[in-house]
Structures are given as C-alpha cells and as structure tokens.
C-alpha cells in the first residue's frame, strides 16, 4: 500500500495532522492556550488590584457593558452603570438598584495599579476606569475586591501549582517506571509493590491528615510548596505504572538488544533509547494529570486547607462561597467554578486528542 518512492511524513507532522483533525482537541488546545495567556498576563488583564479592598463596593453584582444609554444615545466608549445600595424593609436585605445617572466609562490601555512583570515595574492595563469609578464585570466579593481580577490572578497560582506537582510526579514516575521496567526481576517486584501501595492508598484521608499537620502560622509560600509535595506523594504511581508497562514492551525490541551488543551500559540504554521512546506517552499522561491536580487543589483550598491568602487560587475564592446564604444572595461568587470547568475540560480535551493522535495503531476514521 505504501509507495516506496514517496518519503513518508515525519512522526510529528503526522501527529499534528491527526490532532488538528479533531475539533474537540482544537477547542481544548484553545482553552489551554487561553489559560496560559491569562496566567502569564494576569496583572495586565486585571483592571484592579486583586488584593485591593473597597468597603464602599461590597458584593456588587456583575455589571453589563453598554454602548447605548437609557435614552438610546450611542456612546463609542463603553460604559457600565453604577448601583445605589438600598435596603428592603421587609426582608432586611440590602438591595442593589441600577443608578442610571452614574456612568462608569471604560478606558483601554490605561494606567492603574502598579505591578511587576519580569522584574520591570509597570502600571499599564488592558482596561480600567477613571479614578473614583469602578466596574466589576464578574461582580465583587465580601471585601469589595474585583472577582475578575482575582480569577485572573488565581489562574496563575492554580496553574503554577499544577505545574509544580506535575513536574515532581513526572520525574519520579519516569525514574521509577523506567528503572523498574528495565531492570526487571527482583527490583521490579519490590518497586511494583511500593507503587501498588501508593495506588491503593486512600488519597483524600492521607492528604487531609498531612495538610492538617502543617502549622497554621506557617508562611503561605511554604504552605504552597508543602502542599505541592503532599499531592505529589501519591500521584506519581499511576504514571510510573504506565511508563513501566511501556518500558517492558520496549526493552524486548531488537534495538535495545542491539545497543547492548554494541556495549552500551544501562545508563546509556535508558537515556538514549528508552527515554525518548516513552516521552510521547508521558506528555499525554501529563496533560491528563493537570486537570486532576487542579481539582484536588481547588478542593483543599475550598475547605480552607490549601493555598493560604495572600495567594489567590480559584479554590480559595470559592472558600467564601461556603454558606448557602452567600450563594443565595450573591451567586456571582461562584464564578471561579467556570474557570475551573474551562481548565479541566480544556486540558482533558487536549490530552484526549493528543492521545488519539500519537497512537500509531489508531484506525483512521471514515471520512
């Protein structure tokens, strides 16, 4: 079937072709890129300081952007109406009435709060409002902080956290997996029992108890690092299992034996022959591991056991949405849920499509 004079596509161009034939995968890739973009440029994208409190604007609902005012006058510069805080005498609940006289205009590439990017002090932002007026596209929280800015800032911490956990688990998983599969025999048996222990261990109780030992007064940065290690302590096992299986099948191939016949030592065989051949598999595993780490982190932060302020993570933001009354009255505090959803779905779709694309035995779909 193969025309002998035609040079076949390289492996990566084939993978690329197969990947981009999958629409869900492209959507996933788009989400992933979007998340990375927001994480990197979080400060630039945030109109207000995510930590900046504003006691005058507590629990503001999300504001819509308008080009026409109530008299249908067009304004090129978009604006949002402000609110008048009221009080319902029957339910004793504070109310928010739209104040049509107060127009908050949006200015693009404007100067605002100061931040550091790559060591440079900057104060330019994608959009903001003039001093004295404020606009909350996703509403504000109990301290009057802008939810949107906090979601952007949270994406940075959440993704960084996932990255650290995934790096640690990948290194451990590959090391354990390859050596276990390559050296086989008694070493393999011993390593696999440990791996099984890690796989069979009830994850949540272990994490909860480990997190509970962390002193409450600890530096938030140290908590962040310790959390990453705690989560990594079990997550490596699944990856190492997969890498071991792959190594077991690879080491029976003739080119490993040929390398041995040339006099290569174990280290060289592992680094030069086995490692490059398991990478594609590892990349897929990693892209599917990230969402699970994001979920676990959000879960702990939601319980108040994970990331500590002043760090902002999506889970930590949801921490304030713990009681029913808050959710009932201010449903927009749940907006980080959508950020979590997008990232989990995005990474999953991306990872699934990548796995289908790198599988050389995949049956080409009927066109």
């Amino acid at each position, binding site marked *: *079937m*193969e*025309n*002998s004079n*035609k*040079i*076949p*596509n*390289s*492996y990566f161009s*084939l993978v690329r*072709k*197969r990947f981009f034939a999958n629409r869900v995968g492209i959507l996933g890739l788009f989400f992933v890129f979007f998340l990375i973009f927001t994480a990197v440029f979080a400060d630039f994208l945030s109109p207000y300081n995510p930590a900046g409190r504003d006691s005058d604007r507590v629990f503001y609902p999300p504001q819509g952007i308008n080009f026409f005012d109530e008299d249908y006058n067009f304004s090129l510069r978009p604006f949002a109406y402000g609110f008048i805080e009221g009080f319902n005498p029957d339910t004793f609940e504070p109310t928010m009435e739209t104040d049509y006289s107060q127009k908050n205009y949006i200015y693009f590439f404007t100067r605002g709060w100061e931040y550091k990017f790559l060591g440079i002090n900057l104060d330019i932002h994608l959009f903001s409002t003039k001093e004295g007026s404020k606009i909350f596209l996703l509403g504000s929280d109990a301290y009057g902080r802008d939810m949107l800015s906090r979601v952007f800032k949270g994406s940075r911490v959440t993704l960084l956290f996932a990255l650290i956990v995934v790096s640690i688990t990948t290194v451990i998983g590959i090391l354990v997996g390859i050596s276990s599969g390559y050296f*086989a*025999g008694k070493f393999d048996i011993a390593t696999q029992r440990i791996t099984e222990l890690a796989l069979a261990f009830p994850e949540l109780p272990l994490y909860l108890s480990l997190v509970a030992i962390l002193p409450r007064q600890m530096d938030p940065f140290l908590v962040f690092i310790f959390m990453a290690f705690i989560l990594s302590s079990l997550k490596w096992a699944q990856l190492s299992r997969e890498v071991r299986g792959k190594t077991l099948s690879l080491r029976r*191939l*003739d*080119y490993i*034996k*040929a*390398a*041995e*016949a*040339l*006099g*290569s*030592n174990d280290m*060289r065989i592992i680094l*030069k*022959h086995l490692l*490059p*051949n398991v990478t594609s598999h590892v990349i897929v595993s990693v892209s599917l591991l990230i969402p699970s780490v994001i979920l676990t982190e959000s879960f702990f932060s939601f319980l108040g056991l994970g990331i500590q302020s002043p760090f902002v993570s999506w889970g930590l933001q949801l921490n304030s949405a713990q009681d029913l009354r808050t959710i009932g009255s201010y449903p927009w505090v749940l907006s980080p849920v959508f950020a979590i959803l997008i990232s989990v779905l995005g990474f999953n779709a991306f990872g699934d499509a990548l796995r289908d694309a790198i599988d050389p035995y995949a*049956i*080409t*779909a*009927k*066109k």
Partner: protein
Amino acid sequence: MSNLVEIENLRVKFNTDSGIVNAVNGISFNIRKGETLALVGESGSGKSVTARGIIRLLANNAVLSKDTKITFNGKNINTYSEKEYQKIRGKKISMIFQEPMSSLNPIYTIENQISEVLKIHDKYSDIELKKKCLELLKQVQIPEPESRLSQYPHQLSGGQRQRIMIAIAIANNPDLLIADEPTTALDVTVQTEILKLLQSLQKKYQMSILFITHDLTIVRQISDRVCVMYNGDIKETGYTKEIFTNPQDDYTKHLLSSEPEERELFYDKNGKNIITGNNLNITFNTKVKVAGRNKTLSIKAVNNISLNLKEGETLGIVGESGSGKTTLGQTLLRLVDRESNTQISGDINFFDDKIDQLSRKQFKPFRNLMQIVFQDPYASLNPRLSVKQIIEEGLIVAQNIKNKKERLDKIENIMNEVGLEPSSMQRFPHEFSGGQRQRIAIARSFVLNPKFVLLDEPTSALDLSIQKQILELLLQLQSNYKTTYIFISHDLRVIRSISHNLIVMKNGSILEQGEAKSILNNPQNNYTKNLIKSAFEIVY
C-alpha cells in the same frame, strides 16, 4: 473450463493521513472453476487488497471504485448490498488468513467456532451440528477429532489451528476459497502438509482456490495458473509452468532471477579459530504454579552442542521455530535475556580467550569484535535516532573514538560500502524502506570492523528481490574483511546460497552437522530429508 469469477477493472484507493494511496489500479482477471490461481507479488503489490476487494472486507478508509465489475457464477455481485454479501461470505466464498493465532476466538471451543458458520447460513439440529463438525475435523485430518471438539484454540498447535480455519472455510462447501498467505506463519514441514490438505480438499469439493503468496516455491507446488502483481498492477498471467520456464514480463523475469541460487563458496579450512563452543547446554527455568504448588519448569533450549568457526567461514543454522537456534547464537554473544532464570554450561572461546565466565564489564572489550544483525529491520532500529546516531553509537561506546571528524569519516565510509547514500545520514529510520533499514543495521555492525557477526534471519522479513541484494552485500563484506558468520534461517534456499557449513537443529539438539553441500545433497536424517523435500521439491 468456464469461469467462476470474472473481475474487471478492480480499483481500490485508500484515504490516508498523507493523502490518497492507490493500492490496486484497475486489474482484470478470471478464476476458473476448480483451478488454483496464485496471486503472487512482493509486499505492497496489492494482492491482499485484491482478495479483500472481491469479498468486500476492505478497511474503513478503502474506496472500491464504482466501475469495478465482479461476476460470480454468472451473477454481477458488485452491486450487492452488505446484507446480500453476508449471505455469500462463508457460504459461497470463504477465506483463510495468515495468522492462525489471531483468527480464532480464544474463548470459544472448536465446536462452537465451526458450528457458528454452519448455523449462520443453514438450519441444523444440535445432533446434526455435532456430526457435521466431527466430519469436518476428520476431513482436515486432525488427530483425535472427537476430543478436539471441546478444546480451545490455545490447546492446539499453529498447524492444527490452521486446519481448524480450513474446516470452517469449507464447512458450507464454498465455490471459491481465498487463502491469504495461509502458511507464512507456519514451519516448512507443516506448510507442506497444509498445502497437501488444501489440494486434496480441492479435488474432493471441486472448488476454486485463489492463493495469495509471496513464496515462489509454494506457487510452483500448488497453483495451476499465476497472476504476477506489482505495485497494484497485474504484470503477467499464465500457466504456472509457462511462467516459470518462459517469463515474458521484465518484472517476472526479475522476480524469478531473485531466487537465491546455489553458489560455490570457499574459505580457508586451516585458518584461525574464531569462535568455539564446547558442550553447550542452556536451560530456561521458569516458576509455574501447578495446582497451587510452585514448580520449576525447565526447558532445555540447547542440548549439548559443540561448534567451531574458522576465519571467513559461514555456519548456517537451520531449524523450525522453537528449535533453539536464536538462543544458541545469542549465547555465543552473551546476549541471552538477563531476566529469565537461565543456566548455561559449557565453554565458549573467542580467539584464545575464554569468554563464558566474564562479567558484563569484562566482556565489553569483545563487543566491537562480535556483532549481531536482527531479523526485523523495523524493530532493530531506534525510531527516535537518526541514521548517523544509530551507526555512531558503537563508535562511541565500544571503540571510544572521541574525535568527531574521525567518527564521521568512518560513518561515511561504511554507508558507502553497504550501499547507502551518506547524505541521508541525518534522516530517521522510518524514511527508509525495509531493505535500506536492513542496510543501516548492517552498517551499524560493520562500522566496528567485527570479526564475528551473528546474522539472525536477516533476510526473512524482506521481499525476494531485496533479499538477494542483502545476501550479496553480506557475501561482499565477508570477502572484504574475512568476517566469520553464523547465519540463522528457516529458509534452506537462503542457507544454500551463503553457508559453507550447516547445522540442522530440532528441539535444542543437533540432528545433522557438516558441510552444507553434502547435507543438502545427501541428508541422513529423516527430519532433514523432509525439510529439504518441502523446500526444494516441486510437484506439478
């Protein structure tokens, strides 16, 4: 004789990731009633696709052209719906495949598998079914047919499984049997039995056989007429005898001349001893659980074998799968799997050094003098390394050449010598064909200038014409460097064209050992006689 099947303008395309590939380019041929038509060609010539096109079992991405016309028994069947086709498949046209291991479902008994094809097409009572199954098993000459009915596929040997496949295929007295390389996965002696069985069944049922193969010996043995295929076209059609004695087409001529021939080969019988093995015994011990108890199962892979190779000599080792020939060869190179619990006894000497007791580190200096070339050029090259990196590896690890320029010179020289373009050294293995890949593997070994090379079926995964080129390359290298070879093969024709001496192995023991020519011309052992008969004898 009238035609059973008439095929006009059969054309199949494949939609692949890299565009449309034409597999069969509008071929026309007929299959006559009661004849055996061989469809012969090298890999990728489109012979299997042709057969699958006839019974419409093509892959999902294959497109059968609209103007293809297939007439079966006077009826035009290419307009049939899938449902109508299902009535023909297994009833009027049946098929047997290459791999008997994977074409039977492991969870059903033999009786289930045979009766299924009967039940699909006709109504039978349970007693009739059992009777019919038993009768079929007797027809395909399986020993103890009664006890086979309740057995599962894994309890049968490869040859027996293929007999079951044949029983399933002939269950409904088909008019046409398509056999797609049915004996390629089997040992030579088993192959002969299966071919004989097919011939006798054909006479009995008066059915036509479309026999797909790449093996010219089989074509000579079994077929009445031949279609020679190349690159999706039929190059030549005719009676077997005529085509073999008087080929018309250039490709057919080329194919026939590629068959390995007998050669006059010489080496210095009083030369230096290169490698000597004395009383070699190799036992694999595996722990198995039998009825809850741990037992050690010992398999003797090599049983008391001694051999001695001189400089520039080629020793052929021939035997069926599982006869221990690869284990023997790899033991000489100290490459036997470390994980298995293996016992090796006996002495191995390389030049004047005793090497069987050396540790892996102590053995390292010998590595560049002893090399290996494997059977499958797809599995023996690391897909993630460029050709340069593959060939360079030995220079770095075994010869420790630090100078980049020196390494590059050596790589260029050896690539020229094995017939590869040095400018292609930055490319990756998947960009090369099977034959070129085998040249890369040979270059990897010979760049080290080895004194002894183990050739483990280096040509059996290759097409006939490429096989010849590789054999010639190996002979050329041997005459240049006086390299000593062990050539492992199951193909006596290949062995005949390259070996000075020969060992015939069965179940780990030597049946015959001596000069290749004298063994092939005058075999002493019954097994050897059978082997030679299967490989060379032609029954018209």
